[in-house]
């Protein structure tokens, strides 16, 4: 498995080249969400990396509004495009632009946010036919799913293995009003936010020229799963150490990470995790059950089912009547029919229909139309929202 990461200086490129990283990522400020390098530095680093025989990819991961599009394209055109082995892109519009307007460039679609299933990923590859260098998969795809997905993709596949987890991306500049100071172009505002209402404290916040980003309080850590990922066929592991500010510490970590990529040793992975300066999580790697809570929130007893459904209780006047909004069109159950009510608590109450009147208190003799309010004999322990059913069809 290849290792890829971000480089921001000659020294970092040297560090990465020394440990055997095959490809570096350059972030150009005007095109990169979290800010990045200026044009001269991108030029310099791209050339230097090439001299050191490192492949270079460029990150263009901002989402681009129609208004900004022409300007972004101009910024892009100034770059040494011939030096990049691929352009890392999140916005499908930008992918389409490069596909259409730059036929010699390869794309690295970042599908981290929106493609969590194989047909979606394959659709992207189809739509960008022949132009994709590799594809970046979402960290919300569990290992079980990755096992199914990766072998079906005919191209190299990349996954974030270590680094900050982006949680939120807004085009609005939301931190400037907090510090009550103007931010100059290219500058970043970095703060932390804590809410008593949420379970986690100290979210890293960044405001750049492109808006506001929020990161998770814990970083993703999947280096312990390297052998399994390798077995699945993962081709590129991305490690993002941009949050590690200490240059020396970073250098040491690169060596250890590269060693793990070359030959995995569990104990070394554990040591590295212990030394990593941020708390970590596995995210959804083991399982993604982030949708299981919702079906439980609904009361399925209130869902009318089947042909025998008649309507819903909308009023209960104790000892006097039940009011039912009728849902079955053109049907009047004969008096003495066996009916039952299913209460919101799940109780089933059988009873016989003794009388049936309209809202003017007249006995109903013709079939009841849908949505009519019907008054029937009172039943004990029944509440509003109970569902009325016929016990069996007339004649059965």
């Amino acid at each position, binding site marked *: 498995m290849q290792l890829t990461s971000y480089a921001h200086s000659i020294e970092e490129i040297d560090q990465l080249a020394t440990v055997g990283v095959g490809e570096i990522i350059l972030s150009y400020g005007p095109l990169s969400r979290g800010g990045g390098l200026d044009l001269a530095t991108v030029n310099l680093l791209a050339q230097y990396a090439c001299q050191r025989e490192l492949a270079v990819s460029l990150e263009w991961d901002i989402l*681009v509004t129609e208004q900004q599009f022409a300007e972004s394209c101009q910024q892009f055109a100034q770059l040494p495009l011939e030096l990049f082995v691929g352009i890392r892109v999140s916005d499908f519009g930008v992918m389409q632009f490069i596909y259409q307007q730059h036929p010699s460039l390869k794309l690295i679609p970042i599908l981290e946010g929106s493609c969590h299933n194989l047909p979606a990923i394959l659709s992207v590859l189809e739509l960008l036919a022949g132009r994709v260098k590799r594809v970046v998969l979402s960290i919300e795809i569990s290992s079980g799913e990755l096992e199914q997905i990766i072998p079906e993709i005919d191209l190299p596949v990349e996954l974030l293995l270590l680094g900050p987890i982006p*949680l*939120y991306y807004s085009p609005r500049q939301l931190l400037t009003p907090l510090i009550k100071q103007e931010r100059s172009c290219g500058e970043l505002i970095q703060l932390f936010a804590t809410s008593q209402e949420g379970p986690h404290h100290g979210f890293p916040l960044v405001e750049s020229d492109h808006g506001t980003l929020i990161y998770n309080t814990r970083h993703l850590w999947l280096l312990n799963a390297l052998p399994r990922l390798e077995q699945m066929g993962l081709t590129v592991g991305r490690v993002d150490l941009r949050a590690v500010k200490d240059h020396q510490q970073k250098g040491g970590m690169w060596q250890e990470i590269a060693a793990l990529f070359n030959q995995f040793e569990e104990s070394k992975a554990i040591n590295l995790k212990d030394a990593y300066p941020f708390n970590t999580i596995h995210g959804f790697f083991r399982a993604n059950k982030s949708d299981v809570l919702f079906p439980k929130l609904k009361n399925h007893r209130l869902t009318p089912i089947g042909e025998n459904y008649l309507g819903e209780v909308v009023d209960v006047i104790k000892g006097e009547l039940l009011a039912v909004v009728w849902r079955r069109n053109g049907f009047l159950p004969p008096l003495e029919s066996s009916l039952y009510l299913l209460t919101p608590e799940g109780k089933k109450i059988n009873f016989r229909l003794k009388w049936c009147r309209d809202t003017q208190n007249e006995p109903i003799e013709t079939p009841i139309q849908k949505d009519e309010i019907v008054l029937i004999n009172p039943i004990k322990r029944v509440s509003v929202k109970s569902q009325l059913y016929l016990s069996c069809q007339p004649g059965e």
Partner: protein
Amino acid sequence: MSSKIPELLAPAGSLEKLKVAVLYGADALYLGGQQFGLRTAADNFTQRELVEGCEFAHARGVKVYVVVNAFLHDQELAELPPYVKFLEQVGVDALIVADLGVLKVVRSHSGLPVHLSTQASVINSYGAKFWQRAGVTRVILGREVSIAHAGEIRRATGIPVEIFIHGSMCSSYSGNCVISNFTQGRDSNRGGCAHSCRFEYSYSDQDGAVIDSSSPYFLSSKDLNGLSLLPQVVEANIDSIKIEGRMKGHHYAGVVTKAYASLLAHYQKIGQWDQNILQQQTEELSRVINRDYTSGNLLHPAQGDSIYQQRENRPLEYQMVGIVHQVVKDDFILVEVKSAFELGDRLELIPFAGEAQEFELSWIRDLAGGQVVRTRPSTMVRIPYLPAAQTFNLLRGRCAEVVCN
């Protein structure tokens, strides 16, 4: 310049709200089934309700779009084909999707038109082209696109475009917030958003020093309101304008739909924008649930002043108290009580067209004929007949008079 009137697309959070929105003037409705949408806490439609909702809407010339806009994982995708086939059988007019995998399934199992959800965050012409190539027939643009640029995207691609015109907004790019996923284990892109952007926050800097800020709600967007911008919408040749709010109540569904419908209808008839209707309906919009209004990005990119600096919604001046279920001429109106009101209260009936009508409750009776002094929610009562009343009209009272929640 064409002056096509855009389709007014309203939310239908339940069958009853669907009927309310249709009768208050929607041209089309969007709703969710019990799976694959983003509003899992909304009532959503059972299959039976979907059939009934389509019948009701189609009988009145109103279209129905079903939302299947979650980003699905493979296992869920496998469950999708029978649902898609059912939706086609029912006769829904289009599906709203955000996921290329879902799009693939829909296209291979039905001939239904597909609208691209705003969740896909298409905000430029090239993005619209990408999805057009993928097979969508309409693009619901990201809320970051201005009206003018939406018009440009339409011109550049020829694909029909829809924009959000009213309602709550994520402050993030749609589909680009997974705070709930990683903090609460609830996938915001599969309907589990925990609304962390509405929380109160405190801040510190890189050194841990507390930032003294008077803005504890830095992520909470104000609500979008584009009523006064309808002339620009028509000018830009936008195909459809959407009201957010499947989770919101009947009052919101009825009043907001009516506000936009009445202004558009007058323009369609007379060819001019009526300032009186605009003013009247602007006031009406201030009476429904909101977090203060902003024009969002409809004219210019939204910035700091688009943030709502409170935890709760704005206190309401009006409360919806009931919905008319039956009108018996010269006798009574049968009302389902949604919020308590009392004998002697002054209420307003909101007709499907025209101004709200105030009246005083001279008597209230329950269904057994007993006199009622104070009503209870989830009961039915009879009140005096009003000639203007029609089934599914909404009744409301001023909060000073009725009990506001």
